[in-house]
């Protein structure tokens, strides 16, 4: 049974609009949450993270929201740009001192010019 789910395999958004990528999890022990972006034929690139003591973290056009009671994580990109087109993975860590990340299957974002 998957502990981390990204239920939308793909998402298309018009340039300039907001992109919202979602991630749901079942294990309440996860305490650190990350988003990675992946272009074809490249490795994932770390984008932004949030710890369980916060509910929002912002970095430029990227904002990550954490709803612990709903076990839901989201990434907002605004305004979306064509260069944001990539596969986005959420990755979750279980417990302080843990090193292992559990990844979702990814959502492919296409930003249409």
């Amino acid at each position, binding site marked *: 049974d998957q502990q981390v789910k990204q239920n939308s395999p793909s998402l298309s958004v018009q340039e300039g609009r907001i992109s919202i990528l979602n991630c749901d999890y079942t294990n309440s022990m996860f305490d650190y949450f990350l988003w990675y972006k992946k272009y074809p034929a490249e*490795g*994932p690139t770390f984008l932004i993270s949030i710890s369980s003591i916060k509910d929002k973290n912002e970095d430029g056009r990227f904002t990550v929201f954490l709803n612990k009671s709903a076990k839901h994580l989201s990434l907002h990109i605004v305004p979306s740009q064509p260069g944001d087109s990539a596969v986005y993975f959420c990755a979750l860590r279980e417990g302080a001192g843990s*090193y*292992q*990340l559990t*990844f979702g*299957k990814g959502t492919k974002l296409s930003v249409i010019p």
Partner: protein
Amino acid sequence: GAGVSQSPSNKVTEKGKDVELRCDPISGHTALYWYRQSLGQGLEFLIYFQGNSAPDKSGLPSDRFSAERTGGSVSTLTIQRTQQEDSAVYLCASSLNSNQPQHFGDGTRLSIL
């Protein structure tokens, strides 16, 4: 180098052969990780190194898989007697320590004929 370097970038081999994949982590990063991504799947954890030691080998799928790390730097992942189900992209990541975000290489795409 500036980032995590993996070689080869692509490897095609016949079933039953042994393969060796190499990872050069970011200089100074003590933690090193190997993952596997099969088609349409998320990243699957294989093994974690802290320095030259591998405290967690739990993700290795079978005893045909082994990994080592020398000098606290370069790591090699070896797959013996390859099978078709071993076909995947093998990704290496490193981090300053186990609590820091992981930085990925571009992976080795392994195809078993």
